[in-house]
């Protein structure tokens, strides 16, 4: 009697009305890893199938942007790029900013864009932002290659001396952290845009403004001392500076500002995954 009761009470899962912040199930995410990979593959195929240039389009955007920046900010306005060639300076900023921007924008509308799918089948919702980030890492890889090629070109033909810095080993870490910052912000906004449609405008507008508070177009030490804190309040600032320092040998970094950025990103990541988990199940009734 007792035994049979024990058997029937041994449930493997339970569905109830509670939503939790800490519902992150890594085991489950691992089970769906192939889904992630094939979503990345799908994104790639869909973007470049039936196009003439295929993935080379990824290079057109940064090259055109680079041309504009060099022309407007360097030649017309005369913003200093320190001792660096303007092309290398701007391109490094553009490539890293694109990565942040695309990760953020790609994640921000997840619930809106996938409402149909989410209402028909269960899988861990976090799979979609993770695959999204995978796609962006891939795109970043291609643009980063362009940057390296440009660097090699300058070193070979323009007498530019490549800095050799042990900081180069931090590059992968910086890239991951920038991606995670974009992802976390995107996760939070994906929940908000699902609930409030009017926030969509704010997101597209806000991210453009944020770019001007990030040292994409100017080096931090070009900013006057008395307003520099505004730029340094932005956690992305030290990532961009470290990225340039490691790659091009110029950039203002300090352990404090790096520590601040790191803590900021990690806290944001934890909070955003929490919010995403907590709200994800409820949102499907709203979208």
């Amino acid at each position: 009697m007792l035994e049979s009761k024990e058997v029937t009470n041994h449930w493997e899962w339970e569905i109830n009305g509670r939503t939790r912040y800490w519902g992150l199930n890594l085991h489950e995410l691992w089970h769906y890893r192939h889904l992630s990979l094939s979503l990345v593959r799908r994104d790639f195929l869909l973007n470049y199938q039936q196009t003439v240039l295929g993935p080379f389009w990824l290079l057109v955007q940064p090259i055109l942007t680079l041309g504009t920046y060099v022309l407007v900010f360097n030649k017309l306005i005369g913003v200093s790029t320190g001792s660096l060639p303007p092309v290398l300076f701007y391109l490094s900023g553009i490539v890293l900013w694109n990565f942040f921007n695309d990760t953020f924008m790609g994640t921000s509308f997840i619930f809106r864009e996938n409402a149909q799918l989410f209402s028909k089948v269960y899988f861990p919702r976090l799979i979609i932002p993770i695959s999204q980030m995978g796609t962006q890492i891939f795109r970043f890889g291609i643009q980063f290659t362009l940057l390296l090629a440009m660097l090699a070109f300058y070193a070979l033909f323009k007498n530019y001396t490549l800095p050799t810095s042990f900081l180069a080993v931090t590059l992968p870490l910086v890239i991951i952290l920038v991606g995670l910052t974009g992802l976390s912000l995107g996760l939070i906004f994906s929940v908000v845009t699902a609930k409030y449609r009017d926030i969509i405008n704010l997101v597209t507008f806000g991210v453009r403004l944020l770019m001007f508070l990030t040292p994409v177009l100017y080096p931090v030490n070009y900013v006057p001392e008395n307003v520099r804190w505004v730029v340094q309040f932005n956690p992305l600032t030290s990532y961009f500076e470290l990225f340039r320092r490691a790659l091009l040998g110029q950039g203002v970094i300090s352990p404090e500002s790096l520590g601040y950025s790191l803590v900021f990103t990690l806290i944001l990541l934890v909070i955003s995954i929490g919010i995403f988990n907590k709200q994800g199940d409820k949102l499907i009734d709203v979208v």
Partner: protein
Amino acid sequence: MGDVVIQVEELSKVYRLGTIGSGSLRQDLARWWNTSVLKKDDPFYYPQLSENQEPMDKNQKAFWALQDLSFEIKQGEVWGVIGNNGAGKSTLLKIISRIVKPTKGVVRGKGKISSLLEVGTGFNQELTGRENIFMSGYILGMTKQEITAKFDEIVDFSGIEKFLDTPVKRYSSGMYVRLAFAVAAHLEPDILILDEVLSVGDAEFQKKCLGKVKDVSRSEGRTILFVSHSMQAVSNLCNHALWLQKGRLMEAGKATTVINNYIKGVKKSQLHRTWDNLVEAPGNEFVRFKSIRLTPRFSEPDAPLDIRTPLTLEFEFWNLVEDQDLSIGLHLFSYGGECIFDVPSPSFQCKKGLVEGECTIPGNFLNDGSYYISLIVVKNTSVDLFYYEECLSFEIEDYRGDIKWFGKWMGAVRPSFPFRLEQKELELV
């Protein structure tokens, strides 16, 4: 068998008509300012239902999709979920599939669940058949090894091997559905949840799918939960049924009993139908029905419609094509979905215009119970032009005369054949 694999306890789901908040941040902020900061009455004030529930609209715009549902499902059972539109069937399946959260109550269970609420979930128009098999498989929770192992079987079942590397946007809708179902049919969950998926595709494929689902449940001991509007499919496939009405559980138990009660409670006899104009009339470019009427030929004016009553089916239809050789087939189904008979009319050369016809089902022929009639219009006794399914429904009361036994009378029909019984010889015992 025997082990409970799904236990549903006091499950409720409330949908607010309208959305959470107002959908605009400005209004939500105004509300928060009024209630939390100024401590004024909220213009959208909702009384709380209980401590763990979301606030409700005081205008009673809350909609209980499910209310206090409790039942248990044992391993290997096949359950049909029946009920009208809006009864909460899909909501129930969505909660068990973990797509939406219940408002109250719990579902506990054992084993891996796969649900198929739509044909072609995760399919992408641009991808090829092969890529979509993987994509859809992953989304439904299969692993790479599972799909690879079953790949040939899936392709075989769908019958599209020639088009495997063609984007599915170039598929016909039939091929698309076949491929999509083929993937889903090869899922190997412990519990399979199906929502009306068999209502798409051609009849032959439906049969194949139904057969596959049957196989899966019989030979492999899967537990299946199946929503359908077709009583035929439910009674065919399921040994248990769950009847929902307006979010409440009306009855759960043996499929035949529940289906019968559902029919009694919900389905009304419909003995005649007429249409005034061609636009509304059911049909197509070849024929459209004008009226269909089933007239009981009562022996006396206020007799009940029972097994003794002959029934005459009269119908009129517009023939829209000049000089067609048409015949009509009368299909009579029991409410369980079994076809009792299929009677064709002789064929007739029809001119453009209105055509009428009739057919009489004799008294003392059908058993008591609920029936429905479908009419089929056939051209040249071979080409189906229009099949009007379930156009009429009726019920036949029991009549037993002097018989003192009151159990359920067996059989699909109850014809009165000449029977002879007489004393042959007297013998002393």
